[in-house]
């Protein structure tokens, strides 16, 4: 099904829009992009100052004006779907989590991006295909309140959170809903098995879907431990008594992807932007903020404070095909 959709779009991509054919000189792409003069990005990364930094650099470098439409993942998806159904092709670039991007790829909302020079610099386990290009990676770990948890008591392994001392004291993103909690559930299930998640349920974690507020609740001392903590949120909490901990097994992660929307009015500017996003200068902005970069040679240049956390092992991520089944399983285990 997915393969058919992708092949269909590849065929369509050859005929739609003024995109340049593969193999053309990149300089011509840059020139065509400058002539297009504008780029509209639909993103599920709401209010990210790092995104803005990279966009501003793009505007200054190429003189192409960028318009940003920010909304939550499902809202971005629905807008794109409705607009395309109504024959309104307004956006050029789509930036969203890998699960939503996978679903939208299946629904035929994108067109092939064509050759982009910096794709060759992408490092495993992240990889690009004809439609999707990894942008940055959200890595998940634990967060403890330093006033409530002594260094000796800090969890070192994911298995340590099953210790009875944490019973009723874990604040967590909900595993039964799309988001960081669901990513953690899948990775814990895949890594440690069903028994682990059942024991985690016996720890009676308290669920909350307001991530920013949950982090503050832990900082204020309502709970000593929060999972899963998005590493990039540490920037907003510097100065508070909290500490991120990447357990020895590694960090669950979720990828954000860049794609070119179907019938994008400015396909050359879109390609140029994706290439710009993969430049080391852009990726270092995200890396210093706590996102894992997707291209080589960036982690090593990250600020010292964050480097050891980013250099940890990528433990695993969600599998879009299994997402609904895993959400259902989480509902049964965490009633």
């Amino acid at each position, binding site marked *: 099904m997915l393969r058919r959709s992708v092949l269909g779009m590849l065929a369509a991509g050859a005929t739609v829009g003024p995109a340049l054919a593969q193999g053309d000189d990149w300089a011509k792409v840059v020139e065509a992009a400058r002539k297009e003069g504008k780029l509209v990005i639909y993103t599920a990364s709401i209010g990210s100052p790092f995104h803005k930094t990279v966009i501003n650099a793009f505007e200054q470098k190429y003189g192409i004006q960028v318009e940003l439409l920010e909304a939550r993942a499902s809202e971005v998806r629905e807008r794109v779907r409705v607009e395309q*159904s109504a024959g309104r092709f307004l956006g050029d670039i789509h930036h969203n989590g890998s699960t939503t991007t996978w679903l939208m790829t299946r629904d035929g909302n994108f067109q092939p991006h064509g050759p982009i020079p910096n794709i060759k610099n992408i490092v495993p386990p992240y990889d690009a295909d004809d439609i999707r290009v990894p942008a940055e990676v959200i890595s998940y770990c634990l967060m403890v309140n330093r006033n409530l948890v002594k260094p000796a008591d800090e969890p070192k392994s994911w298995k340590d959170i099953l210790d009875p001392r944490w019973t009723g004291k874990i604040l967590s993103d909900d595993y039964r809903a799309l988001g960081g909690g669901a990513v953690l559930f899948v990775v814990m299930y895949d890594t440690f098995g069903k028994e682990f998640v059942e024991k985690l349920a016996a720890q009676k974690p308290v669920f909350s879907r307001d991530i920013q507020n949950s982090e503050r609740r832990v900082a204020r001392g309502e709970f000593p431990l929060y999972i899963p903590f998005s590493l990039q949120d540490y920037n907003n909490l510097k*100065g508070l008594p909290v500490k991120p901990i990447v357990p020895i097994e590694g960090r669950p992660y979720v990828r954000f992807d860049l794609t070119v929307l179907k019938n994008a009015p400015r396909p050359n500017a879109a390609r140029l932007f994706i290439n710009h996003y993969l430049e080391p200068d852009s990726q270092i902005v995200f890396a210093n903020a706590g996102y894992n970069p997707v291209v080589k040679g960036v982690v090593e240049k990250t600020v010292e404070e964050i480097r050891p956390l980013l250099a940890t092992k990528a433990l695993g991520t969600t599998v879009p095909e299994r997402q609904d089944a895993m959400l259902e399983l989480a509902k049964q285990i965490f009633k």
Partner: protein
Amino acid sequence: MGSATLEERPDRVTVAANFPERTVLFGGLRRHGRLFGMGALILILCFLTLYPMVMLLYGSLHSTPPGIPGEFNLDGYAGLASAENLVVLANTVGISLVKTILSLALAILLAWIIARTDTPGRGVLEVLITLPFFIPPILTATAWAMLGNAQVGTINLVWRWLTGSESTLVDVYSYGGVIWHMMQYSTPFIFLFVVDAFRAMDPSLEESSRMSGATRWQTFWRITLALMLPVTTSAFILSFIRGMESFESAVFFGTPVGINVITTTIYNSITQRAQPDYQSATALGFAAMALMFLLLVLQGRLLRGRSFTTVTGKGYSPNVMRLGSMRWVTFAVCIAFFILTVALPIGQLLLSSFFRFFGFYEADMLTLDHYRSVWENSSFWRAFGNTMLLGVVGATVTMALGGIVAYITTRTRWRGRRLIDVLAWLPWMMPGMVLGIGFLWGFAILPHAIPIYGTLWALLLAYVALGTPVAVRVTSAAYQQIATDIEECSRVHGAGWWQTLGRILIALAWPAFAVGWVLIFFGIMRELSASILLYAPGTEVLSVVMLKMWVSGKPEEVSVIGLAMLVLVLVFRWVQLKFIKKRISTL
């Protein structure tokens, strides 16, 4: 009172008497004009309210959303009949009912104190006790989460310090917490509805009751409250329905302890699954709507055939009850309400806005950075400009539309009046997050030559549709208190339909218009569900910018904007009440 606004037009009466054939001609034109007007009104309301509903109905009956191949079926509705959904329904109705009853009782008490007693400082108190309604719910939720959490909430810490006990006095993460947080919005909302009705009460009716031997309590119960029935039932129903559609309180304080309501279930269907389930979400929205419709039918039956007129052609001056030393008790009641619902949470917000982090009050964390950051944020100013424009134009257009609809439904027997009443009500009965999708679907599929989608028009039309039910309810409750004799008197003296509407009804009901305008204006400032789906680059509004700030971990900056909104409210309310005072000198 009413006659002062009338204008003598003997020429018209004379002309009508001398040239009956012209009267027939004009009568025919007038009839055709009325038909045309009603037709235009029905078309406007159909586009604003029925059209997005039809899109949603399609979504609830089709296996896929518009634009994707699928099949028609009833799976969305069949899926509602589960034990889990019954619990959700019971939670929703139970929570909303309890909070509405408590809020109504409290609001009536406060309105009576402010409008009909000599309680000291009630002019200022009136402004202060309505403040919570205008603060974004997410901010008061954050404040209460800090004040009332079981572990380290300020209230519980003070309680433990005072009593030496280890017990917990309050826990906002509970049914009580959800209800309490909702009450902070519904009490001022109902108060705003009823306070002007108390003012518009002709005291001669109460005096007659007292002279006939009724006690003060009997008079309050049988006369005052009975005459207020249209306003109180309208406020009750609006508030109850809003309670069923409330999202923030339940998601903030209910979800962490397993309390689910209709809106959190809809939210889960749309945003928390890999594949959004619009069919279930819209079906649940329509099921909730059917329930609310029953309420409206009940209200109609309750009020049918009864008169609630208190403003007649005879002059009167609303009096105030001299309470003696008891006025300090009523003053204390208002102050207690103010402290609990305003001073505590807003104090927390104000304090936090001067510190680097919400809730961390250390000297080295004092800062003005949040104010500076908001001041220098160009997105904020752009959104502020858009929101002000949409707020002023939206509230004015909505009140004009609502005033006309209310006039036709309450003061005429024109054919089609029930239809426009139902059409105007529709948006209120569908949870906002579902209705937002209806607008998105509806506006996007319009022919591209109609420039609505992706422009400020899309937001304006959605806001007008969302605000119309409030405008209609506020104005129709006020109209119902005005006797028809004043209106007839105006017509006999030669005033036209528009003149009578403007110079008699609106002139007499203008305090209600002012309240409705403020309610709608601030409703527009806070609206998020439709805005997030309809805005385009360049047409951002304040609620969207606040969401961006919140999600990106800047609650302190959101507080600054919330406080700025409060200042705006104070200015608006001050101006509004200054005018009321001018008109009703005894107050």
